[in-house]
């Protein structure tokens, strides 16, 4: 099964259980390389359906303070592209089976070389790629190359994206459509925007069957409960990192959070 099939299968499985896929983001190298590998393995064990491995970039302009700080710390610890690929390979060697998608900005990919990056990612067991600073017009080269390598392409759409454009973006997705919930940057929010359900429904109509996962701001079991019946996937990043920081990066605390979010899904059946 290649990356595209693995990602599709994760969504199909969740949908078969009448629930959205739960997707978690963790930056590789935070708080250090070894700890981040242990944390990702624990998230998978606790029931994450898909995990985004953050490849740190020095100038993450789509990210809020929590992810900025975490990725900055990873960079200060010396983590670079090869370490992220190594982390993926080691997670596979540990028996982690969930789809792993690399989330990063375009410059580290370009610097490594697109074909080299994709080949090494496939080799390491990576299943997909998310690049928030590549809008539709700039994405074609990487998107086509990722497809040829069997890696799932996950484009982003935003509340400001018109329906017609949203449909064109979704048509390029081979994994899922990453729907940004808010007009803004990443970061846990106490409350989701009032019109988030309308935004989600609109996006799913325009996406024409492509799974739509909602991210940015989702932080609490209540959010998951409120969105569960409307989204194909829910993405949690900053809230997880904050919990990690508050718990001294305790894998058990992070696993318990994953389970709590799963249990918040009304139709969830073990």
């Amino acid at each position: 099964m290649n990356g595209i099939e693995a990602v599709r299968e994760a969504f199909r499985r969740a949908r078969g259980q009448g629930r959205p896929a739960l997707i978690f983001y963790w930056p590789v190298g935070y708080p250090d390389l070894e700890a981040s590998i242990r944390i990702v393995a624990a998230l998978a064990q606790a029931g994450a359906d898909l995990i985004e491995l953050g490849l740190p970039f020095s100038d993450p302009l789509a990210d809020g303070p929590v992810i900025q700080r975490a990725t900055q710390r990873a960079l200060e610890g010396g983590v670079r592209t090869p370490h992220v690929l190594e982390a993926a390979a080691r997670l596979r060697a540990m028996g982690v089976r969930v789809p792993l998608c690399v989330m990063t900005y375009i410059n580290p990919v370009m610097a490594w070389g697109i074909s080299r990056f994709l080949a090494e990612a496939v080799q390491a067991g990576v299943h997909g790629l998310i690049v928030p600073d590549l809008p539709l017009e700039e994405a074609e080269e990487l998107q086509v190359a990722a497809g040829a390598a069997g890696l799932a392409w996950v484009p982003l759409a935003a509340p400001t994206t018109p329906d017609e454009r949203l449909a064109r973006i979704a048509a390029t997705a081979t994994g899922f459509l990453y729907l940004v919930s808010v007009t803004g940057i990443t970061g846990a929010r106490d409350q989701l925007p009032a019109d988030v359900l309308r935004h989600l429904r609109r996006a799913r109509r325009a996406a024409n069957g492509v799974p739509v996962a909602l991210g940015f701001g989702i932080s609490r079991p209540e959010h998951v409960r409120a969105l569960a019946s409307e989204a194909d996937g829910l993405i949690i990043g900053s809230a997880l990192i904050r919990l990690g920081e508050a718990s001294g990066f305790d894998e058990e605390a992070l696993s318990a959070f994953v389970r709590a979010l799963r249990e918040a899904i009304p139709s969830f059946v073990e």
Partner: protein
Amino acid sequence: MAFTEGVRIPWVPLPVQERRGYFGPYGGRYVPETLIPALEELEAAFHEAVEDPEFRKEFENLLRTYVGRPTPLTEARRLGEAVGARIFLKREDLAHTGAHKINNALGQALLAKRLGKRRVVAETGAGQHGVATATACALLGLECVIYMGTADMARQRPNVFRMRLLGAEVRPVDAGSQTLKDAINEAIRDWVTNVRTTHYLLGSALGPHPYPLIVRTFQSVIGVEARAQMLEQFGRLPDVAVACVGGGSNAIGLFAAFLEDPVELVGVEAGGEGIPGGRHAARFADRERGRVGVLHGARTFILQDPWGQILDTHSISAGLDYPAVGPEHAWLRDRNRVRYTAITDAEALAAFQALARLEGILPALESAHAVAEAMRLARARPGSWILVNLSGRGDKDLETVAKALGNGEAMEPSEGSR
């Protein structure tokens, strides 16, 4: 200079772009999807505005009656005699607020009003763009927020105070290297969050399309005037035109009017403490660290490590202390239309002092890089005619210069940096 119905056209034609938003392989629009509709809207408004006689008239009127344009062209006779050439200074230091930045700030603030946006955010390095933006916003009644790295706030204190006096909110940016790059990150994040009500008033010829075109267009008044003044006052064009290049707005503003002329064009990057040690901001001169990549929405030459992480830069001048260069400069360099060189902190300081003593002009440290290159060129080619864009005045840099000169001839290695 072109005239139509009494209105001077302060800009040159747009460059031909084979791919929309691209200068050859450089440029583009590498930003989060959230911003795409705003960039489309801005592009459309810009094209409408430059064709609209009313807009042109309003902009031209402000440039004349508020900025004080045309700025003079001054021959630097004593400096010229000292180095054996004729040196002409385009006096952007005499524009209102003390630098060329006001040209673009006013143009874009007028665009913001046209777009119905009441709030403006901007980044600033040396503080000149921040002051210009705060000024334009005060004049036009717009809310103004300026992001500035804390290292830059420390070395450009007078400008921080100026911005606040002008009614702008200055937000310190403590991330990364605490300089211009980090201020731009924060300004973009603000814009992503408030894009429906806010215009991002980008100050240099960089960023996502259409910013490089907008900034070039509003700054081209520099070159258009300088070209006409050379012909009118001295009867011929210069042999060489020189400008410093941070992002590259004053340089592209000067060069744009000379691209079709037999005039050699030279862009000057910040050589900092020299290229080999990496403590500089010379994207072109450092062939190891300066490579094509993407930063702040554009594909261009960027100082980066082998893994694509952006490197910290160093320059005594905050306005040149930036790891990427405007995409059109990369394209002009590829086609050998503009030659790019680097001037060190020490050379810039020497030029700063020379211009002060010989001409009675304190240049901005940014502009002192261009003066230093002109002096070098003059010595290499005696008798040549050299036009220098004196992009700003040096009052903001007095503290930095005093510190640098305080220990005798040698400059402290840590001067001007974090």
